[in-house]
């Protein structure tokens, strides 16, 4: 039996260094116990009470260490006193590591009466850790059976409850066979099973042990504790044993927490610890299938389980692993991110790849692994599932909710991986032409945003055509949702492009410019499509601000593609979008348009500078048409908002240019100024408020007062109202000759 050593220096903070736990107790979600913290807390300085308690505990411990004969509790005041001390300190603060050896020795040696032993065992609440040695020596007491069976049981239950507090477990693992032999004791069997469950490693699983357990099972019938242990054996050695757990099972080990759990929690709370020891058992029981439907007609994402096929192959090949880790880490045990990090070199994907969808840790792992076959496995499964479960493609499918949830899960996975699945893409191409635009609407539209970037030439017939058909025949809300998801699609493509530029910047991704031009074409096609449906939608719906917002939102991404995403492409919005926005009744749209035009300008100027500097020969130049279009728009815009000359100067073929004669026939007075920043219908509200503030007494609303210095004040007022788009537009695109004169301002063309 080992002698204790730590008791000689009881006040020294313990320096316990954990080996990395690879045992089962480390599976659970809570992580580990922070030992050193708790020890330090225990040693809080200048606490007189603590010191005196410490002294009395030391006295009690030395008493129990020396106690020789059976002492009666009733007659012995000293015993009673020390017992009370131990109990009260244990329940309040927990016992220090060095206390366990003494108390376990005395409790299991049978020197004292069982009532005393029980009370001692019940007060074995750890303040920090329990030294492995003390546990080892108590197991040897257990083997010589000096104590009663009740005490043996209590000890086992204690050991299970405090398993995570034991500082090392190597020697304990060496005693696996001893524990296993206790299985034959019918009373102890459930607790021993639980303990073995905590101790079992792959190397503990041996054919003879399996046979022994199967014998026990034959003798005792279906017992949940045996099931749990056998399932664990199956997990480690699926080629030796198999078991299917009934679906309803919830608890496998009953009532093993004993009287300590509450006390441990109290002590921990007192010691400000934050790692709850919750005994979670996660045997891989798949969700029970409902009996109502035929086999495999239900949409079920499989549960993660170890690929037994591979395990066995490895065993047979007997191959030598480079990492000398011949065992793989069962995915069922993967519960925490730190486990993922520790085991990432010998982790295997589950037998059914579909299960990764509901397992974020495996998705992380997937992100690190460049193995084609994992994508292929997922692809086959998902393709099949999507096709078979699609509620509007399969005639008699009544499980829309299930399908909705599934699509939702797939979408979330795509977001997590930041990458679209090709099985989803194919599903969309296949099913969109049949879609009513209603069933699972938001899920489908979200999946659209993750269609992978490809130069697939039939994008038009497979995506744009069916989408346009639905778009034109559906509600305003649907139109906005489509625009939103197409904006996200564009952003996802652009992000993909940027990431690939970054990751492979040295190795010339686009050495043969065919790929980059292919990409540019695909992106351009999408933008042209959105331009087209936007123009039509604005007409169909009579230019509602709501719709205009989503359209301009899309162009906020488009106008910045060159600078933000490094894509040599800029496409101006069509006139059918530009003019409704320019003449919008709403300042939000106008402000948005100003911002967009400002960004176009910034991007075009940057492109022009790059072109001029000619440091490198550019593969792509913006066509002069883009510049021309921009200039036409800017003339129209400046003419409208600033110089009041839009009707004369607008040169866009679909623009505002009108003969003075025609304009006179409208009998509108001052038609020239009717779209400048004062009279513009979107701005007039601001002008009114400004007049009220500048000339509180004037009730005639004389807008012509806003000129000269007041014009500048008005601008400042507008900026202060949050029209930041207007601000950056005016500051960049309007060349104000002198700050005092406003009328001479001209526009800048690029």
């Amino acid at each position: 039996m080992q002698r204790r050593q730590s008791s000689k220096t009881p006040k020294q903070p313990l320096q316990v260094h954990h080996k990395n736990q690879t045992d089962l107790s480390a599976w659970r979600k809570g992580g580990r116990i922070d030992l050193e913290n708790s020890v330090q807390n225990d040693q809080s300085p200048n606490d007189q009470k603590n010191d005196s308690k410490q002294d009395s505990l030391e006295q009690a411990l030395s008493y129990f260490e020396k106690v020789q004969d059976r002492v009666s509790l009733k007659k012995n005041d000293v015993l009673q006193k020390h017992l009370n001390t131990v109990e009260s300190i244990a329940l309040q603060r927990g016992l220090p590591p060095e206390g366990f050896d003494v108390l376990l020795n005395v409790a299991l040696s049978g020197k004292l009466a069982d009532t005393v032993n029980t009370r001692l065992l019940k007060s074995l609440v750890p303040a920090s850790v329990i030294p492995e040695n003390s546990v080892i020596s108590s197991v040897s007491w257990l083997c010589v059976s000096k104590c009663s069976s009740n005490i043996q049981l209590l000890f086992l239950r204690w050991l299970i409850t405090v398993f995570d507090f034991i500082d090392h477990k190597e020697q304990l693992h060496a005693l696996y066979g001893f524990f296993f032999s206790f299985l034959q004791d019918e009373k102890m069997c459930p607790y021993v099973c639980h303990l073995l469950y905590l101790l079992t490693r792959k190397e503990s699983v041996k054919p003879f042990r399996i046979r022994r357990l199967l014998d026990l099972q034959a003798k005792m019938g279906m017992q949940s504790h045996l099931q749990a242990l056998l399932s664990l054996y199956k997990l480690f050695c699926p080629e030796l044993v198999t078991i299917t757990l009934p679906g309803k099972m919830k608890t496998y080990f009953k009532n093993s927490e004993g009287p300590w759990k509450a006390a441990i929690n109290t002590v921990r709370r007192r010691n400000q610890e934050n790692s709850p020891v919750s005994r979670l058992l996660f045997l891989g029981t798949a969700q029970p299938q409902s009996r109502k439907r035929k086999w495999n007609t239900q949409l079920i994402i499989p549960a993660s389980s170890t690929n037994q096929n591979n395990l066995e192959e490895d065993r047979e090949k007997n191959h030598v692993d480079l990492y000398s880790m011949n065992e793989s880490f069962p995915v069922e045990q993967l519960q925490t991110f730190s486990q993922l990090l520790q085991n990432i070199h010998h982790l295997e994907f589950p037998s059914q790849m579909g299960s990764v969808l509901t397992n974020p840790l495996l998705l992380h792992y997937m992100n690190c692994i460049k193995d084609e076959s994992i994508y292929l496995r997922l692809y086959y499964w998902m393709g099949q599932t999507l096709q078979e479960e699609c509620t509007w493609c399969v005639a008699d499918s009544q499980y829309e909710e299930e399908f909705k949830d599934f699509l939702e899960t797939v979408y979330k996975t795509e977001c997590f991986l930041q990458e679209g699945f090709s099985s989803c893409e194919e599903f969309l191409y296949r099913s969109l032409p049949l879609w009513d635009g209603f069933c699972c609407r938001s899920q489908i539209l979200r999946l659209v945003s993750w269609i992978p970037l490809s130069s697939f030439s039939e994008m038009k017939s497979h995506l744009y055509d069916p989408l346009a058909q639905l778009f034109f025949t559906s509600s305003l809300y649907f139109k906005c949702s489509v625009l939103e998801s197409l904006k996200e699609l564009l952003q996802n493509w652009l992000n993909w492009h940027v990431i690939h530029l970054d990751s492979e910047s040295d190795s010339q991704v686009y050495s043969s410019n065919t790929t980059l031009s292919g990409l540019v074409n695909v992106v351009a096609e999408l933008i042209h499509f959105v331009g087209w449906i936007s123009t039509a939608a604005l007409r169909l719906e009579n230019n509602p601000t709501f719709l205009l917002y989503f359209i301009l939102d899309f162009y906020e991404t488009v106008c910045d593609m060159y600078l933000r995403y490094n894509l040599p492409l800029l496409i101006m919005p069509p006139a059918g979008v530009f003019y409704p926005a320019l003449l919008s009744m709403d300042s939000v749209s106008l402000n948005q348009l100003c911002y967009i035009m400002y960004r176009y300008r910034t991007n075009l100027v940057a492109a022009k500078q790059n072109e001029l500097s000619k440091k490198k020969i550019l593969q792509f130049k913006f066509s002069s048409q883009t510049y021309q279009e921009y200039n036409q728009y800017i003339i129209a815009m400046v003419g409208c908002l600033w110089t009041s000359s839009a009707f004369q100067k607008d040169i866009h073929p679909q623009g505002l240019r009108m003969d003075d004669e025609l304009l006179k026939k409208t009998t509108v007075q001052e038609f020239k100024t009717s779209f400048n920043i004062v009279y513009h219908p979107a701005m007039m509200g601001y002008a009114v408020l400004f007049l009220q503030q500048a000339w509180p007494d004037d009730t005639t609303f004389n807008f012509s007062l806003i000129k000269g210095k007041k014009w500048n004040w008005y601008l400042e007022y507008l900026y202060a109202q949050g029209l930041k788009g207007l601000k950056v537009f005016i500051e960049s695109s309007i060349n104000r000759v002198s700050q005092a004169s406003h009328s001479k301002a001209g526009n800048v063309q690029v």
Partner: protein
Amino acid sequence: MESVDGAVRTLPSIGRLSRGLPFGRPHGQFGLSPSGRLLPPALRSQENADPRRTAFLLHKQWTLYSVTPLYRFSNTRLRDYARLLSAFIAAEKQKGLAVEIGVELDIKVAVSSIPDLKGSDQDQAAILVQLSLRSPASSKNSEEKLIWLGWFCCVSGDDLSENVPEDFTCLPLFLANGAESYTSIVGSWFQKTFDCCFRRLAISPLNLSWMAAMWTGCKVDKTASAMELVFSVPHLPQPLDISYAIHPEDAKALWDTVQKTPGEITQEEVDVFMDCLYSHFHRHFKIHLSATKLVKVSTAVASAHCDGIIKVRF
């Protein structure tokens, strides 16, 4: 075998799967029917094949499933698979009791390869799974009662077999005969072990009409039974089926006038054939069968139901 076409089509083309490399991917046609095809390469047994080895598939009703490629399936480990599967079946049947792998169990599983059953030389050999009950009386396995049969096969999937990447085995069609509870257990085991996915394979009316035409063209002896087409009338409160029986020789005569090139069938020919049958029916009963749904085709050669159930007689 015509029904296989559905299974083949559920399998996507595997041109690109490199992540994030989107270009140069060939896309298959999405759910389009081929306009013409050659006859009938399916399940053509090799010349030197032993007919006894494939006789088991006749005169039984088979339920069809489509299966995605099997991951890490190896033809050399069939014996291991049988062992694991039989323990799995035992564990599933007595949920909660563990089963040692490798011991003799009530249900014996045999997994074997049938090289004779394949559409072309490139195809994988078919895999047969047999479940038989050991009789408890005799300890020797002389008395074994076959209780369930299932087989995987690959039918003329030339381009599929060629394109299947390493680690995957393409056996896209699964046929099962026996209690569905066993189909479910065996199927689940395959799904778990080889990360594949089983789905019931329905046969579309279009494909059923193809089968009607193809099987009509097959030569059988004169005592053959009538050809029967079953139609279901949609949108009725009560199900109503119309059975249309045609004398096999009449049907053959009609088909011979329709088919232009022997050994080849086109969609157009099938349409003409069916239209002739429909107009004949309309002349007598004033019912437009084209407005109903073809649900079953039954000929002297074989029968097929739209739910994915077939029976080969000859």
